[in-house]
């Protein structure tokens, strides 16, 4: 495969990729369908922001956010069925069960672990040790600025953590498991080794005090932007949207079977961070995964970083096997 030159790199030499927005297929069908799949994303984001901005305090609660999240995911499952990006990414019962296992794992066991050694706990310990208060000035900012700043701080940290995972072997080991997925579906973002799921959830948001409503507004970006990273729905996202926000196209390229293509588009929500640091490529891929699309079992997903790490350690520091000459 010849590949495509993008800046200093050549992508698509190992597996087919589509580069450039003009080459990416558009939503086909009647005017209503095209209208819906062109404007759903911005309409939902602005509607959600408006809702959290104006909802009375009795409604603007975490439990409402949880219900909105559930309804949104069910809606996305429906859209995946109606307008899939690729038939080969069609969600199966087995994939749904495995994906939901990881969602459940994150919401239960990982949350317990986080409550003991998560970043919020570490931040609290640092604050107590240094007699620091929270950055209370943050609460004086306009709500939308607080929300945007919270999301940006988290996404910026996640960008570097993610980029580090692709460039430093000890971090790549837990992250590599996530790159063995061969489809993008609504819950695929949750699939990964527990060590990685813990690491990617780390943030410094705990240092800041903020109005609870700002936290809910910040969640809008996570739900109405971040969710589209792993999803099997074809949208005609507006130009300004795909310039600012990470889209399925960006993230599918990041999951491509082509190695060079995986080394781009690290940001979870704000693709402009990739644009700033020169790691953004506008394009998409259908063939995803590692080792030619080998799918890992759940058992291997759990153990892979440790078994591979052990193998590498043995190779590097183990005793070299001495060849015994034949008598």
């Amino acid at each position, binding site marked *: 495969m010849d590949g495509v030159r993008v800046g200093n790199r050549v992508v698509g030499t190992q597996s087919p990729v589509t580069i450039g927005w003009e080459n990416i297929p558009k939503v086909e069908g009647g005017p209503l369908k095209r209208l819906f799949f062109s404007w759903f994303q911005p309409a939902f984001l602005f509607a959600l922001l408006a809702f959290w901005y*104006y909802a009375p305090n009795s409604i603007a609660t975490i439990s409402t956010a949880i219900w909105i999240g559930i309804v949104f995911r069910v809606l996305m499952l429906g859209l995946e069925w109606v307008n899939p990006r690729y038939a080969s990414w069609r969600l199966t019962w*087995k994939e749904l*069960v495995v994906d939901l296992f990881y969602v459940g794992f994150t*919401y*239960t066991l990982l949350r317990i672990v986080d*409550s003991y050694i998560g970043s*919020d706990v570490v931040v609290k310990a640092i604050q107590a040790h240094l007699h620091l208060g929270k950055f209370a000035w943050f609460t004086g900012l306009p709500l939308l600025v607080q929300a945007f700043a919270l999301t940006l701080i988290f996404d910026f940290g996640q960008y570097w953590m993610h980029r580090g995972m692709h460039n430093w072997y000890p971090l790549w080991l837990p992250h590599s498991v996530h790159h063995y997925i*061969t489809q993008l579906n609504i819950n695929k973002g949750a699939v990964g080794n527990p060590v990685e799921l813990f690491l990617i959830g780390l943030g410094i948001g705990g240092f800041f005090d903020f109005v609870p409503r700002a936290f809910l507004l910040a969640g809008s970006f996570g739900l109405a932007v971040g969710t589209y990273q792993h999803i099997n729905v074809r949208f005609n996202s507006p130009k300004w949207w795909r310039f600012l926000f990470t889209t399925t196209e960006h993230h599918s390229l990041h999951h491509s079977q082509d190695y060079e293509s995986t080394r781009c588009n690290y940001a979870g929500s704000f693709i402009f961070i990739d644009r700033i640091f020169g790691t953004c490529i506008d394009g998409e891929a259908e063939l995803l*995964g590692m080792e*030619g699309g080998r799918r890992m079992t759940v058992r291997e997903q759990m153990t892979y970083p440790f078994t591979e790490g052990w193998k590498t350690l043995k190779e590097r520091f183990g005793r070299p096997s001495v060849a015994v000459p034949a008598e």
Partner: protein
Amino acid sequence: MTSPVRAAQPWSPQPWGPADGSASTNPDTSFADKFPSMRLITWIWHVRGSLALAPGQSGNEAFGRLAPLFDETGTSHERTNDTLTFSKKDQPAQDKMSVFDSGALRIEKGAAGSVLHYHLVSRALLFCFLLVPLFLGIAQLTIALGKLEKPATEAVGASKKPVEKAAAVQLNPIDKFLGAPAPDQPKKGDADKPAGRNKKPSATSAYVFAGLFAALYVIGRILEAWLVKRLFRKSLLGS
């Protein structure tokens, strides 16, 4: 000698006994066949079924039509005269039979015509079934940890001096102008309460997921058995 494919199977699927109905003397007979009552248990992840072949369709022709299903990445299969056994490893999601890990298909000639019998093994079904007790266990663990922590938290709370007073939060003038509701002013004692995302984990999520997997198991056990039968039927008809 056992073929490599047979050796790779976690269970040796042999749902059919001798034609006369007597107990099988084959040492390779499955656990479920040795202990018929175990069939109820193995039903959890074993899918058995049969399908009548079209009149005049030979076993060779039938296996020929089914063959593409086993030409998938990660799938190995072996065929004798009337039996096809297969085994899958790291099968991709795009494989139409990815939910099954091994199995056997056999064509038997009966008075009414030839019948395809199949016995398929799915670790995914077993996994889903076991997720229910796993998440119930996680719920119990969450409750137990909560109880363990309570005395310690209460002790810390009792010794804490009541100096911390939750500060009143004021909205930015821009938000006031745009009409955003002002935040509730903290009540007495709110400063000690963990806020929003810092709350201690509750067992509710684990119970919800246990229920979800119970429902998914029932759906999957019915759906996957129906889907594979439909897949075989379509393949045999060549449509």
